[in-house]
Structure formats: C-alpha cells, structure tokens
C-alpha cells in the first residue's frame, strides 16, 4: 500500500468507527467505546501527518474507485492531499482526540451517540478538505454540518437558548445551498465538477456573468461557514448552546475550513479566469476580513459570557486569516496557515479551561465568576497566557503567522496590514486577559448579577469530583504547549513551501490531470523571527496586557466598557441590536451579504 491510500483512510476510519460505536452501547463496556473513539481520531491525525510529510514535493492524489482519467478527461473523484490540506486534517484530528479525552467524564447518559457524532464530524471534515470536486465538497460540507448541528443542540436539558442550534443549522443550510447552486453553474459551463479541469476549461472560455455570479455564490456559501461578517451571527449563538468541548471544534477548525475551501476553489477554478485583475478581488477580501476582525473584536470585548467571548474572538481571528489569504500571494497564505495552527491549539486550550470552570463553578459568566477561581493559579496562568498568545506574543504560532502576513502585506503594497492585524489581535487578547484577571485573581469590582442571564450548567457532568480531573487540566496544558511549538521556524519554512505548492494552479492541475509540472513553484522566504518582529510581538502582548488590566479594574463599575450605554445613538448599542439572536434577522443579513458579494463581483470582476 502506498502513501496515497492514506488519503481515503483519514475519513473512512473515523466514519466506520462512528458507525460501529452507534450500536455498541449495550454490547461493550463504556471505557472501550471511549478509547476506540479517541484512537480513531488519533489514527486519522497520524495518517494526515504522514500525508503532509510525504506530499512536500507534489500533491498526492488518490482516485476514489481507482477511476483515473480516461482519454485525458476526468472520470472519478480525486482526493488531493497536499501539506496544507493534510495539516488541517491533522489539526482537526488532534483536537478531536483532545475533545474526546476531555469529555471522558462528561455525557454518560446518552450512550455513545456523542462519540458517534463527533467522529462523523471529523470524517465529514476530512472528506471535505480532501475532495477536489465541487459536488463531493457539497455532500461532505453537509455531512460535517449535520453532525455539528446535532452536537450543538446536545444539551436539550440545560437552560440554554436552543435557538442557537437552530440559527446555526438554518443559516448554514442556506450557505450550502448557495454553494451547490454556484457549483452547478460551473458544472453547466465547464462540463465537469472537477476543480482542476473546470479551472482549465473556464480559463479557455473566458469570463462572463455566469462565472462571476457562480464565484460570488460559492464564496457566500463558504463565508457563511467561515462566519465572516455579515454571516457570522450563528457562530456566537451556537457557542451559547453547544457543550464546551464541542466549541473547540467549532472555533478552531470548523470556521477555518471555510477559508481553506475558499482558497482551494479560488486557486483551482477561478484564479485564472478571473485573473486579469487581482487587485479588485484583493481589496474585497481584505475589506471583508478586516471589517469582520474589527467588528467582532469589539463584540468580543463586550461579552461577559465566556464562551461567546471566545466565539467572537475566533471570528476576529478568522478575519485576520481571511486578510492573509486575501493578499492572494503564497506568502500571505503561508502566514494564514501558520496562524490557523497556532490559533487552533491556543483557543482549544482556552475552551477547555472554560470547561473546567463550568465543571466546578457551574457558570461561564465572567461577572458571576469574579474571584471565584482564586484557588487555581495554574489554570489562571494558562488562561492569561492564552490571551497574550492571541494578541501575538512570541513564540506562539500566531506570532509567526502575523509576522508572515505583515511582510506579505508589505510585498503586496498593503503596508498597513500588519498594524491592522496587530490592533485586532491585541484587542481580542485584552478581552481574554481581562476575563482571566477577574476570574482567577479577582481584579476589579465584582459586578452585580444580571437577573436576565440564566446560569448555565453542564448537566451531564458526573457529579462532581472536588478536584479537577487530571485529564482536563493536562489536556489544556498540552494544547497550550503545542500552540507555542507552532511558532517554530521549521513550521514557518514548511508552510511557505506548502503555500507555494498550493497557490500554483499548474502544480495542482499537473497532479490531478497528469502532464508536466512546470518547474518547481517559487517560494518566498521570510524570516518570521527577526528582532523587529519579536519587538512587535512583545509590544502587542504588552498592549493586550495593559488594556486587559485597565478594563479588568474598571469592569463592574458603572459606565465601563460592556455595560449598556444609555445613549440610543451609541454604536455599541447598535452592535448589540444587530446581534438580535432572531433567525429571521439573520436570514435577512445573509441575503444582504450575498447581494453585496454578487453586485461587487459583477461590478469589479466581470
């Protein structure tokens, strides 16, 4: 068996174990099911890592069913494993394993359905990332989403707004439909659903309204998944409902995969046919990314519900990732990739720390938790370190990722990009630092309880060990260390190389359709670790720390950030009103966003 056969196993293994576990609850002891699920996720991660390792020179292609192209035309569905795709699956696999380990003491009452759905999510995710075919992407997008919707609504007995799960499911289904409509239009024009082949044929036929509108629809669909403004509402709402471990998967890989898929479809299908003017598209993507980042960074600061705070922070960071990709250069994409890796581990650790708080103190509300976790200095230290890492402190992956995006921005003539990214990251970091200081150190005045805010409790926790189960805190610490390791210079080099492969449509097409690879892609090398970048990173961390301390001291006092402003014209009030939690409003926002993307694309790209 050669390495290419690993590609289908990354999703087939979790799926088959999921199916077997489904009927298992009575047949096998509970602990066996726990271990089997973790092993399945870990195997998927290992296979993906091996693929990433083996595909550094050229993408590895596996033809499902053995249907290689016949007579120069595609027949089957190719799974394309390159280091970026495989790396993303490896990240998801590791985090899924961590989530399942963390959940060992959770959720006894529902047998193995929780395991089953978590593994189906991973399987759908891996299939979605691997498949270089528009139709297959749609099916696996839906598969992954169904598992995610169900996991969101998992805590039907807890006092949480279940509408969050519904909002998630409805908006994302519309997104998937729009993706399929766009994909079908491409199929009608190019005569093939294969990404590489469609790209070549479109490039030959030239652009018109059809191609441009299909592009806008596909991007709308994927941006809904990526939770970019104004499609982001579902993300924070889902966090108010979903079990804390599941939030790890949502915040760290689910929304990021939207950007990955957007990049893959853009490079494969649209880059050449829309290529005449990358400036316009670059401007659109930078705007979308940075506006998303700025608005949700503010929302992040306004939250006192910890899971929602982290959710808005995730969206802000996806905004940064979008901006990195939006430069449409390999250097920008490399920065985005490193950023995703660093963010994934750190954010996962933060969510698990919140899970521990919930486990002990039955609350995820910053105001209610004020000073109540003084007894856990280790957890508090990890929490604040996580905040600083989000701000871009060395040596975490977000530091190197940001440095790469910064220098890529300068090369692409967007010199201010680094500053904008720094500001967004510092603000989201400050919010986490503030919450950490208030909860674990009791900084500032305790806030009066808001009677409208119900307590949340994780009803399925086995009640209730006095000490934190070691699996929980150790998992969080290990993830934080992994987050620091993603800043290693070797990973930067590898990501630059991988991004060079990824954005070169010729390399991708050669791997899928055969033919000669036109030389090795040029790779820009930046040294992410320079004196300047380290100083900048420390500066960002210092800003986050300072802001965090100031806001922590002032929080709870009247008129502080985050308290309801009296003025009807206050922008903060408008922002809050926008996040109404009503699905009918979100449907309208989705339509507005889609209309903006369609009309801008028609004006700028045609």
């Amino acid at each position, binding site marked *: 068996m050669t390495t290419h056969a690993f590609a289908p196993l990354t999703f087939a293994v979790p799926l088959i174990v999921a199916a077997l576990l489904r009927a298992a609850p009575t047949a096998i002891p509970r602990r066996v099911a726990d271990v089997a699920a973790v092993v399945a996720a870990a195997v998927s991660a290992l296979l993906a890592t091996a693929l990433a390792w083996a595909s550094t020179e050229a993408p590895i292609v596996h033809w499902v069913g053995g249907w290689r192209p016949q007579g120069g035309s595609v027949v089957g569905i190719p799974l394309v494993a390159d280091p970026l795709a495989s790396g993303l699956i490896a990240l998801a696999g590791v985090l899924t394993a961590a989530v399942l380990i963390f959940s060992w003491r959770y959720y006894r009452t529902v047998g193995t359905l929780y395991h089953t759905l978590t593994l189906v999510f991973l399987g759908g995710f891996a299939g979605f990332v691997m498949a270089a075919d528009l139709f297959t992407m749609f099916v696996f997008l839906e598969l992954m989403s169904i598992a995610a919707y169900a996991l969101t609504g998992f805590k039907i007995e807890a006092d949480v707004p279940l509408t969050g799960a519904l909002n998630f499911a409805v908006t994302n289904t519309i997104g998937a439909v729009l993706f399929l409509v766009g994909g079908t239009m491409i199929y009608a024009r190019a005569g093939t659903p294969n990404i590489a082949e469609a790209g070549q044929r479109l490039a030959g036929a030239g652009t018109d309204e059809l191609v441009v509108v299909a592009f806008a629809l596909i991007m709308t669909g994927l941006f809904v998944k990526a939770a970019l403004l104004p499609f982001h509402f579902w993300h924070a709402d889902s966090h108010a409902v979903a079990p804390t471990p599941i939030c790890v998967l949502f915040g760290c890989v689910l929304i990021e995969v939207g950007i990955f898929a957007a990049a893959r479809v853009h490079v494969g299908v649209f880059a050449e046919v829309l290529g005449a003017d990358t400036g316009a598209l670059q401007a659109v993507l930078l705007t979308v990314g940075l506006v998303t980042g700025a608005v949700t960074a503010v929302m992040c600061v306004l939250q006192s519900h910890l899971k929602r705070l982290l959710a808005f922070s995730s969206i802000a960071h996806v905004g940064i990732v979008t901006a990195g990709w939006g430069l449409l250069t390999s250097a920008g994409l490399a920065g985005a990739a490193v950023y995703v890796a660093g963010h994934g581990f750190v954010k996962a650790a933060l969510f698990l720390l919140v899970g521990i708080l919930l486990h002990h103190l039955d609350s995820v509300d910053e105001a209610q938790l004020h000073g109540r976790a003084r007894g856990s200095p280790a957890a508090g230290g990890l929490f604040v370190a996580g905040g600083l890492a989000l701000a871009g402190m060395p040596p975490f992956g977000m530091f190197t990722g940001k440095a790469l995006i910064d220098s890529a921005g300068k090369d692409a003539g967007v010199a201010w990009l680094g500053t904008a990214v720094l500001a967004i990251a510092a603000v989201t970091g400050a919010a986490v630092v503030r919450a950490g200081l208030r909860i674990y150190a009791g900084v500032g005045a305790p806030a009066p309880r808001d009677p409208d805010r119900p307590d949340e409790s994780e009803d399925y926790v086995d009640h209730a060990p006095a000490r934190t189960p070691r699996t929980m805190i150790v998992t969080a610490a290990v993830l934080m260390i992994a987050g620091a390791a993603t800043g290693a210079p070797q990973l930067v080099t590898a990501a630059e190389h991988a991004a060079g492969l990824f954005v070169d449509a010729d390399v991708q097409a050669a791997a899928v359709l055969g033919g000669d690879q036109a030389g090795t892609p040029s790779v820009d090398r930046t040294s992410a670790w320079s004196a300047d970048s380290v100083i900048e990173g420390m500066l960002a961390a210092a800003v986050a720390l300072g802001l965090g301390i100031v806001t922590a001291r002032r929080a709870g006092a009247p008129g502080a950030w985050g308290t309801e402003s009296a003025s009807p014209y206050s922008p903060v009030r408008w922002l809050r009103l926008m996040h109404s939690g*009503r699905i009918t409003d979100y449907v309208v926002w989705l339509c507005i966003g889609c209309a903006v993307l369609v009309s801008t694309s028609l004006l700028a790209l045609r």
Partner: protein
Amino acid sequence: MTAVAGALPYVVAAFLLCAGWYGMATSRNLLHLVTCLSVLHSSTYLLLLGVGYRAEGTAPIYDDVPVGTPGVDPVVQALAVTDIVVGAAVLALLLALVMQVHKRHGTIDPQALRGMDG
C-alpha cells in the same frame, strides 16, 4: 424567445430559491420557516436536472432501450438523489430542534424568540 424558453427551468429554480428565502425572512412560525427552507433547498434539484437535460436523450437506464441510445446526464441525477436525501436528513433534524425549542421556550414564533443578546 427560444433562449428564454430554454432557460425556463433555471428561471423557475431561481424563483423557488428566492421564494423560499422570502418565506423564511417573513416567517412567524418556525415550522413554516423550516418548510420554506426546504423549498429553497428544492431549487437545487431542479437546477441540477435542468443542467443535465437533453431533449433527444432518454433516461440513462438501459433495461429496455438499446445500449447506445443517447441518454441524459446521469451524474446530476445521482447528485439530485443525494441532495434529496441530505435535504431530508437536515429537515428531520431541524424539525426535531423546533420541537425542542418549543418545549424549552414555549413558543415557536421567531419574532418572540430571542437568544442571548449582544
């Protein structure tokens, strides 16, 4: 005229998509909203089959027509079947969620349901 008539399936598909969307935005009942989502979803079935249709083709099933007769595109048909199944699965899940929302919050009027604000 011919171009317009040839595009009629696509136009109807686009109409169904917009109609479903409109119904969702104006809905006052989550069961209604979910059904409208299903209408929006069904526009893709029509679009897919429209794209694969050829008047001179037969159904791509050669049990009682001779092999070699031109057929219509089987790929979009297979995907339409898949799409219908996936749509049904999503719908079943959504309706289950609606029942739970009603149990918890006592209403399924989306205007009356508020999540956590801000």
